[in-house]
């Protein structure tokens, strides 16, 4: 226990306190709330919060639903499921920046998608999917790229959860006349709740930090909290403002985790059976 506590204190507690210190101090080291005031008035602050949450509410349910479906599919005895699993896990090995650039080559004005549409004479001029004022285009591009890149993570977690459910439970339900959907809904899903909780916490925390894919695909077209943090740290080299954004991200992530922990609480008897 003690090593774990020490680890958390050194690598989590200390940096968090450090970030809080920088966020509420001036460059000269005096305590202040000026950074927070500046945050609220910052260019695109509202947009960054909105976009971060927008991506979150679209990506998380989408990924969870697809991952559950894929995991259920992988449980069946269909031929070629091994290959299918490999193919779906592949993006796990690709860096998020590389994934962003791959999808940029597809969505950009003279990219593969526009070339295809023009060759097929569907559109006369290239469509500006990634134009700064095309919010649906930007969101769809980021959602597609981000889902493609990270769904395998959710799937791997969900898969391991499904495999730990004793097969007899499903068989017993089948004997009692439950169809595939009812077995999934009333047997698999409730027993999967702790796993889903873990997957949601991991994925939501990562979604708050969505960065490289957004930057590669949209530049400043779709500001999110993490790109604003980076911009303050490395473009303006104002570490106080970067720290305020980082602290806000920390607060959002902690709140999200807390909601999952309380909202998806699993009664102890499930484990004691």
């Amino acid at each position, binding site marked *: 226990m003690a090593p774990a506590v020490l680890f958390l204190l050194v690598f989590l507690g200390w940096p968090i306190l450090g970030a809080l210190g920088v966020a509420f101090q001036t460059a000269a080291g005096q305590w202040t709330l000026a950074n927070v005031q500046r945050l609220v008035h910052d260019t695109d602050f509202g947009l960054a919060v909105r976009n971060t949450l927008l991506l979150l509410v679209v990506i998380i349910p989408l990924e969870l639903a697809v991952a559950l479906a894929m995991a259920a599919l992988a449980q069946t005895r269909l031929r070629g499921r091994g290959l299918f699993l490999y193919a779906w896990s592949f993006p796990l090995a690709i860096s998020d920046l590389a994934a962003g650039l791959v999808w940029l080559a597809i969505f950009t*004005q003279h990219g593969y998608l526009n070339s295809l549409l023009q060759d097929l004479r569907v559109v006369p001029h290239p469509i500006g999917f990634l134009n*700064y004022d095309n919010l649906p285009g930007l969101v769809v591009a980021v959602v597609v790229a981000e889902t493609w890149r990270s769904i395998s993570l959710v799937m791997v977690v969900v898969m391991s959860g499904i495999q730990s459910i004793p097969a007899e439970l499903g068989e017993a339900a089948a004997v009692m006349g439950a169809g595939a959907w009812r077995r999934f809904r009333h047997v698999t899903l409730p027993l999967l709740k702790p796993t889903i909780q873990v997957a949601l916490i991991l994925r939501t925390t990562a979604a708050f930090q969505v960065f490289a894919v957004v930057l590669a695909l949209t530049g400043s*077209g779709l500001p999110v909290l993490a790109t604003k943090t980076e911009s303050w740290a*490395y*473009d303006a080299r104002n570490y106080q403002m970067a720290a305020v954004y980082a602290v806000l991200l920390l607060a959002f992530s902690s709140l999200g985790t807390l909601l999952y922990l309380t909202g998806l609480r699993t009664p102890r008897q499930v484990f004691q059976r």
Partner: protein
Amino acid sequence: MHAVRKPWVVGAALLLTVACGGTPAPGSTSSGGTQQNAGRVEFVSSQGQPAQEVQDMNGKVLAGFSGTVDFSSQPTESQDIDKVLAEHLAGQGTIDLLGLTHGGFASLSPADTLTDLTPLLQRLGKDRSFPQALLNYGKLGTSKQYYIPWMQATYVMVVNKKALPYLPKGANVNALTYDQLIAWGQAIQKATGEKLIGLPAAPGTKGGLLHRFLQGYAYPSYTGTEITNFKSPDAVQMWQMLKRLWAVTNPQSTTYAYMQDPLESGEVWVAWDHQARFQDALDKMGDQFQVVPAPAGPRGLGYMSVITGLAIPKNAPNRAGAEQLLDWLTRPKQQITTGATLGFFPTVEGVNLSGSGVPGYLASESAASGRYLADKKGIPALLEVGLGSQGDAFHLAYQDLFTRIVLRDQDITSSLDYEAGQIQQALNTAKAVCWPPDPPSTGPCQIK
């Protein structure tokens, strides 16, 4: 105001003569003759961006130098300035030769951090000469020579010749106004269905140079200043013009860092950028493009000059090697190869840009930049002077202002008020006095 601007105009006129190769060439032998190996020389300059330029510097400009040069390049020079100041405080240096802009040197408190290069300049003077105006800048307001001029550059527009038929009636492509540029963009859009004007509006330090467009072109052309009249009624009129310009600008501009790329792909036909950022397009497809000056506004033709110099930090570990490298870099042959590599103009007098071995695009860019100097209503602007590490915050304020007013359609007056506060804070923190085109100030430059 005129008293201040005058020497600068004279200097600028001198630059023209140099860039166009007007003065007779001096003997091109080196002052050093056969030189001893200079050893390892650490050479730092933010001018070698992107990475390809570092490779070319190593492969073309520094090849043949009798010594080992470690050339490193950060995205912005604020980082170099911080490093020099930190090494000065630590009392231990790693940098031998430093290449910065004039304004960058001004924020170094030169008497503490830089070596007096007057003796070196005298030695170099045996076989090469620099324009006196540039040498005066290199004294940074003192009697000592703290930097020696290295390269110079400006910003221009490059036009795809396909766009020329759509020029508005009576407009001269070499002397456009901003209103004519907008009318041109409208005519192009009407004929082709596409918005084909381009601006380098990608965000961040690795992004485009839109802040330079605002600081050195739009603001001086409309307000006569860069800072003093930042939120004046003239500035409001300028932002209204920019909104009209943006309406005919390719919206993908928010992803453009170097305008050579969209020009080559045909995504834009008319683009404004730093002369070095057109290099690739002009090199490959020069016959399809024409280089022209930026447009003029109601107050005149605002334009920006980039002057870079070479200096040796006081605590340079290899001072002799640095002097040898500085000598090497200011020889006529290296001036031309550096110009070709970085897309800049030479500073050494008599280095002729129209001779053989000089890329054609440099000569055509030089002709366009000559038009700035010849313009009677020209308003020359310098890159920021004395802002030091506040430079990045200063640029971000201009970029943010563009985002607020043009991209997000926020209220012009309140956006100007807010960003004026950010800029004033940067000026006050750095204690930076006004620089041209703003009239001189005694304390930190003030926004009215």
